[in-house]
């Protein structure tokens, strides 16, 4: 202990400390980081753990065997992708009966989400969670993705994915914070009001192109402030509320008598 205390002022002490800190961070990250999203063959233990979580957290609305009740739909055959999307984005479990299940901080960690997904997938075949490669934006063609996005998605989600309003309090959420996996799962499963874009009408390559396009929208805009990219609404608000106030302020100042 004394040697350690004496050595703390050594010339190399910062270097040693830094190396140790880096090693520690690496080990902790490896232990806690989410495992790759592709759970090819979920183990029996995973399904069992998922069933326990399901009964404790989801069965009130979806039924003890996920067969559905008056308060929630059946989940048999919705697939792992749907469960992973709804739970990982915090939409499920839903916190109140409202027009739309809102995204919120997720209640389960990645491992528990995977277990839930594995359990529901074991009840009936459905779309699975996409692999890392399927959602890698680097492998997609952003230009083609933009073309597909503008025809298929932009009406609701806005041309750059800023989101927009639907009817009766529902809305299409902004896509700026969604992970590539969540984007892929949403297209594949059509959560809530969103229609399904299955692999036949929007191939996996098309989906990856769309993800590449959306990732590109997160880079800084060369045009300066985008004002939320909401178009005439935010721009008009800026021009009227702020631009006009400044002009009126100047007019009053010019006309006012100097003290």
């Amino acid at each position, binding site marked *: 202990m004394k040697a350690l205390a004496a050595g703390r002022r050594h010339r190399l002490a910062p270097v040693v400390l830094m190396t140790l800190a880096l090693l520690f961070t690496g080990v902790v990250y490896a232990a806690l980081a989410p495992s790759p999203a592709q759970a090819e063959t979920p183990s029996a233990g995973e399904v069992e753990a998922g069933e326990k979580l399901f009964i404790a957290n989801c069965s009130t609305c979806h039924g003890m065997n996920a067969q559905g009740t008056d308060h929630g739909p059946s989940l048999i055959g919705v697939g792992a992708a749907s469960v992973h999307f709804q739970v990982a984005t915090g939409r499920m479990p839903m916190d109140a009966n409202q027009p739309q299940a809102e995204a919120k901080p997720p209640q389960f960690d990645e491992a528990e989400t995977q277990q839930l997904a594995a359990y529901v997938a074991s009840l009936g075949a459905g779309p699975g969670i996409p692999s890392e490669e399927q959602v890698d934006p680097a492998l997609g063609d952003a230009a083609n993705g933009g073309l597909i996005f503008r*025809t298929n998605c932009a009406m609701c989600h806005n041309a750059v994915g800023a989101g927009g309003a639907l009817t009766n309090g529902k809305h299409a959420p902004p896509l700026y914070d969604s992970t590539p996996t969540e984007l892929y799962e949403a297209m594949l499963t*059509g959560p809530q009001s969103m*229609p399904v*874009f*299955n692999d*036949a009408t*929007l191939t996996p390559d098309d989906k990856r192109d769309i993800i590449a396009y959306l990732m590109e929208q997160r880079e800084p805009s060369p*045009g300066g402030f985008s004002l939320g990219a909401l178009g005439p609404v935010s721009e008009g608000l800026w021009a009227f509320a702020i631009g006009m106030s400044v002009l009126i302020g100047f007019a009053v100042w*010019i006309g006012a008598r100097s003290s």
Partner: protein
Amino acid sequence: MSIEQPRGSHDLQQSESGEVEHPERFENPGLPPHRPRLGDEDPKANKRSEHQVVVLFVISIIATIAAIWGFFAFPVDGLQVGNVRMSTLVIGLGLGLGMLGIGVGAVHWAKTLMNDHEKVEERHPQRGDDATRAEAVDIMREGVEDSAIARRPLIKGALGTAVAIAPLSFLVPLIGNLGGDWDISKFRHTAWASAPGGGRRYLATDPTDRRIKASEVTRGSMVHVQPWRLEEEENFLEEKTKAVVILMRLDPKLLKEPEEKKDWSYDGIVAYSKVCTHVGCPVALYEQQTHHVLCPCHQSTFDITDQAKVIFGPAKRPLPQLPITVDEEGYLYAQSDFHEPVGPSFWERER
């Protein structure tokens, strides 16, 4: 006196009934007394204002130099998005502050340092005196006589014609450019009528142009559709604009179909025009839980389960339905064209 007497008593009666008494004419109150500013009496305040004006002009000088620096510091050649952003920002701020500094400085100078004594300028009558007016009329008459326009009909006719037709040089192109094509029968049919050569017109994904099998359109899904291989044809964009379609699959039990349109859908798959019947926006916000399609422009809402009838918004007519069916291999194709014109109303439409 005899006139003012009754008026006075009239005024008196009015004031007795509680109304405000107005004088016939307001006195000119003249200018208010001149109040000196702080800087007029205190040389220190005067000096301070002078400094403020100088500082404002110096801000302008610095901003202009910054703008020029920004132009050289952030070259925008190449694809550096960050540079474009910074260059625009620095040059814009420099230009703005450069102008604002000069303007604010000048106004501040005028307000605080220049003389602020009130001055009155009397307005002069606008009418000239009679002699000037007579002289002007004479000059005009002399000019007319000198040109002898009455005795030179050829010149008169030529000038009249020149003046009359001169506006045509911009009126003709203006009216001509309104539309080279007045053939409104084009509104009544779309590319779905038949493929070139009279073949079947298949439904294909927009924009990837793959043919669609009925089995690929799953429940709850929606496909944006264009006529297959339309891109190879003439006026592709105009034809596509008219022919775009949305394809949805619903539970067949949900669909309310009149007897004559029973075979227009295929196993719960329905196809409707994507062009709003209000002003022609792409109606494509499909809520798969309520089966409503919403127009992004004016929120017209159509119920897909019930013949795409309008349930909200300014649209008047339901979306036209495209009759579809499948071929031997299961690919969807259009049985015929739409049975009514797509899109917004036009004069010659019956309803």
